[in-house]
C-alpha cells in the first residue's frame, strides 16, 4: 500500500480519505432525499420523537417540574463506560501477540478498573429503573 504511485506523489496519500468524505456526504444526501420519497408513512407518537426513543426534551415533561429523570443519564454513563472499554479492547485484540504478557496484564488491570464502577452502580441500585 505505501509504495504505490499515488502515495509517492505527496498529497495522493490522502486520496482515499477524500473519496471517503465524498462517499459519506453523497450517502447522507441520498438517504435524506430518498427516504421520504419511497418510505411508508405511518406516523405515531414514537415516530415523532428524535431518534424515535428516549426522553422528550421539548415541550418539557410536566411531571417533576420540567426535570429530566436522572435514570437516563445513569444508563447513558454506563453505555459510555462499556463503549470506551470496547474502543480499547479492539486494538488490543488485534495486537495481542505483539504486546505480549505486559499487554495482557495492562489490559487485565484496565478491565478490572472499569468493572469497579460498574459493580458500584449495580450494587447501589443504579440499574433499577423504578
Amino acid at each position, binding site marked *: 500500500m505505501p509504495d504505490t504511485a499515488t502515495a509517492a506523489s505527496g498529497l495522493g496519500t490522502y486520496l482515499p480519505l477524500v473519496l471517503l468524505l465524498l462517499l459519506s456526504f453523497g450517502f447522507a444526501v441520498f438517504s435524506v432525499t430518498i427516504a421520504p420519497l419511497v418510505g411508508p408513512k405511518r406516523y405515531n407518537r414514537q415516530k415523532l420523537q428524535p431518534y424515535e426513543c428516549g426522553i422528550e426534551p421539548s415541550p418539557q415533561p410536566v411531571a417533576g417540574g420540567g426535570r429530566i429523570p436522572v435514570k437516563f443519564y445513569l444508563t447513558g454513563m454506563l453505555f459510555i463506560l462499556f463503549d470506551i472499554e470496547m474502543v480499547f479492547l479492539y486494538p488490543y485484540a488485534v495486537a495481542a501477540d*505483539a504486546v*505480549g504478557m*505486559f499487554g495482557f496484564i495492562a489490559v487485565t488491570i484496565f478491565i478490572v*478498573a472499569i468493572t469497579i464502577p460498574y459493580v458500584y452502580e449495580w*450494587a447501589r441500585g443504579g440499574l433499577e429503573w423504578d
Partner: protein
Amino acid sequence: MDLAQGGPATALGVPSIDVAAVLPLLIVFTAGAVGVLLEAVLPRNQRWPAQVALSLTSVVGAGVALAVYVTGDFESTTTFRAEEASSGALAVDTPALFLWGTLLVLGLLALLLIADRSVEPGGAFVSKAALRGGAAGGTDTLTKEQTFTGMQTEVFPLTLFALGGMMTFCAANDLLTMFIALEVLSLPLYLMCGLARRRRLISQEAAVKYFLLGAFASAFFLYGLGLLYGYAGSVKLADIAVAAQGTDRSDTLLFAGLGLLAIGLLFKGSVGPFHTWTPDVYQGAPTPVTAFMAACTKVAAFGGLLRVLTVSFESTSWEWRSVLSVVAVVSMAIGAILGLTQRDVKRMIAYSSIAHAGFLVVGAMALTEDGLSATLFYLLAYGFTTLAAFGVVSLVRDSSGEATDLSAWAGLAKRSPLVAATFTVLLLALAGIPLTSGFVGKFAVFEAALSDGMAPLVVIALVASAIAAFYYLRVVVLMYFSEPAPDGPAVTVPGVFTTTAIAVGTIATLVLGIVPTFALDWASAGGFVF
C-alpha cells in the same frame, strides 16, 4: 500491517517501570479503587469505619513507602519509559518526591478533617435531606442509626483519587500525562464541592461553578498542549525544551501554546486574573473539602507549573517572564485589595490564597535552584497554615451551621481563648510575621527573586503583603478587642480527628517558622530530571 495479515509480530517493547519509585502512587490509587468497592458491598452502617480506616492507612502507607524509598539509596529518575524513549512519563526526582511528601501529609490532615463527625451531626457530608438543620429541628424523628450513618462516605475514595491525581500531576514528565492527571485530580474535586448540598444549597452552586470554569480551563490546557505538539512534534517536556533551543521555526506556536497551557495551570493554582472561581468555591464547598482544595490543589498546580517552566521553557524565559510578572502583580493586587472588603471568613482566606498564589508565581519565575527550593518550601508552609485555618473555621458555629460572617467572630477570645490564639497564630503566618512559617517562606521566595533580578516585583510583593496584613490583623483585633455579640456563635469542642489536624497544622506552622532549616534542606536537595 504485519499484524493484520497474520505475519510475524514485531513485538512492542515493554516499558520499564520502577515500582519502588511509584509505590506511593500505586497505593493511593489502589486504595481509592478498593474504597469504591467497599461502598458497593458494605452495609450502610459499616461504611464510615471501613472507609476511614482504609483511607488513613493507605495514605500513611504511601508515606511510609515514600520514606523508605527516599532514605534508601535512590537516584532521581524517570519511569514508565518506553523501550527506545529517552525519558519516561513520570519523573521521580527530588522536587517530585518533596511534593509527594507534602501532598501526603496535607492529604492525611485533610482526611482527618473530612472524617470528623463530632462538630456536626452526621459530618459535613450528610446523605439525607432530613438531617438538614442539624439539632435545630427534625432530628428527633431520626433513629440513632440514621444519625450515626448519615455521612456520604463516597468522599473518601474521591479524596484518594484526587490525591493520586495531584501526585501524578507533580511528577508528570510529558504534557499528556499531565493533562490526564489534571482531570483525575479535578473531577473528584468538582463532586466533593457539591457533597454538602443537602445541607446548604450554596455547596451545589459552588460545584457547578467550579465544574464549568474548570472544564473551560482544561480546554485551554488542551489547546496549549496541541499547539506545543505542533511546534515540537512531541509532548515530552524535555523535547519541547530541545525544540525551543535550536531552531529557526516561528515562535508563534511555542508562545501561544505556553500561554494557553499556563492559563490551565494558573487556573488550578487560583492565580489572578484566573481566580474568579476561588472565593465562591471556597465559600460554598464543605469546609474540610475547602481545606483539602486550598492546601493540596495549590501544591499540585504549582508543582506542575514549576516543572513545565523549568524543564521546557527555561531557554525562552526572557520572553515570557514579563507576561508572567504582570500575572503575579495582578494576582497579588486582587488578593490584597479585594480581600479587604470581605465580610466572610472563608472568602477572606480565599482572597488571601489568591495573594499567596501571586507570591508563589514570583518564586516559580525565578528559574534558579533558590527559586525552586523557596517555592517548594512556601507550598509546604502555606499548605499547613491554610489547612489548619479552615479547620478552625469549621469549629465556630451557631444554630444554622458554621458562622463564617466576620461579625460573629467578635470577642471570640473571651469565649474560647485557645481557638482564638490558634487562629491568631495561623493568621500571623498568612500575613508573614517572623517566627511563623509564612515569614520564612516569603523571605526565601523574595530573596530568590531578588537575586534573579526581579527587584521591582519584590517591592510590589512587599506592598501587597503589607496591605494583606491589614485584613488578617483586623480579624485578630476583632477577636481580642471586641465585645462578643450576645447571641454569638458557640465554639464546638472538636473530636480527636479535627483536633489532631488543627494541632499538627499549627505546630508545623510554628516549627517551620522557628527552625526551618531542615525543610529548606529537603526542598533544595536537587533539581528536576527529564
